[in-house]
């Protein structure tokens, strides 16, 4: 595994992402809240472009102590959604939001000054 240069940090705004091919791997790199996250772009469902769909906050239902619903709310954690059939993955872990055993391959991202590298 070696550090592969993928671009300049100054070109990556928060919320931006890039899809790159490194050797035989296709990788999606996200910048979210100042951090970089990189995952395999092959969805674990049927190989769709997992990192190219919507990014959307996690939805949770809030309940009162007596279990009556206070409705659905967006939380602070962010997910990205495979555009083919909607598998939703956690931005920080790459885990499927429902089944944590389904996990996209994660790549380390290293920044050196203004340079961004993916370890692949």
């Amino acid at each position, binding site marked *: 595994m070696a550090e592969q240069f993928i671009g300049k940090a100054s070109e990556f705004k928060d919320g*931006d992402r890039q899809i790159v091919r490194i050797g035989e791997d296709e990788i999606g790199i996200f910048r979210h809240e100042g951090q970089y996250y990189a995952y395999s772009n092959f969805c674990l469902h049927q190989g769709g472009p997992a990192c190219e769909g919507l990014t959307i906050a996690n939805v949770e239902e809030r309940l009162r102590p007596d279990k009556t619903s206070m409705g659905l709310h967006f939380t602070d954690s962010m997910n990205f959604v495979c555009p083919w059939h909607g598998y939703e993955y956690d931005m920080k872990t790459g885990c499927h939001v429902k089944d944590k055993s389904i996990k996209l391959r994660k790549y380390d991202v290293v920044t050196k000054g203004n340079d961004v590298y993916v370890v692949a």
Partner: protein
Amino acid sequence: MSSPRTVTAKASAKTSRAAKKSASDEGMSRADKVNFISAMMDGLPSKDAPAKTRTEKVARKASANKPLKVEILRKISAPVIVATPSNALSDEARKFAAAIEDKVASGDFDALTPEAVQALMTALCKFYSCNVEAGNKFAVVKDRHSITGTDAMITCGALLKAVDLQVFELGMWQSWSGL
């Protein structure tokens, strides 16, 4: 000299061995079965892309620490939000909206009377549609995360019901008007 009984026994043993042999010739050998199953699982190697040889695999391992070719396939930018200058009524509206959001978050659903909600919904509905018809199109909520799909469906459904419209009429009108 062997007895006729021994000769018959030998002949029948020969016949059964031959039968077994021909049965295994007709069926698949163990190796054939293994090959067949692996072809089903992995797909047949195409002529253009022969399976990786051991030498190729070793070569890939040796280059594991070398920079690989990096090709940028696409860049997806964060959505751009264009800010417009505010005014006194807008500031007040934002403050009021924030106060309502707080009430919703704390579960105080009686903070506004139904009459007050009706007045607000009516005014906002008119204000928004006038803007869109005047060509001043903007998203009805700040971003995708402002409301949930359920919020949108409940409110749209209630608005359609209030004016006695069906969803298919909405669809037809949208396709005609392009709005």
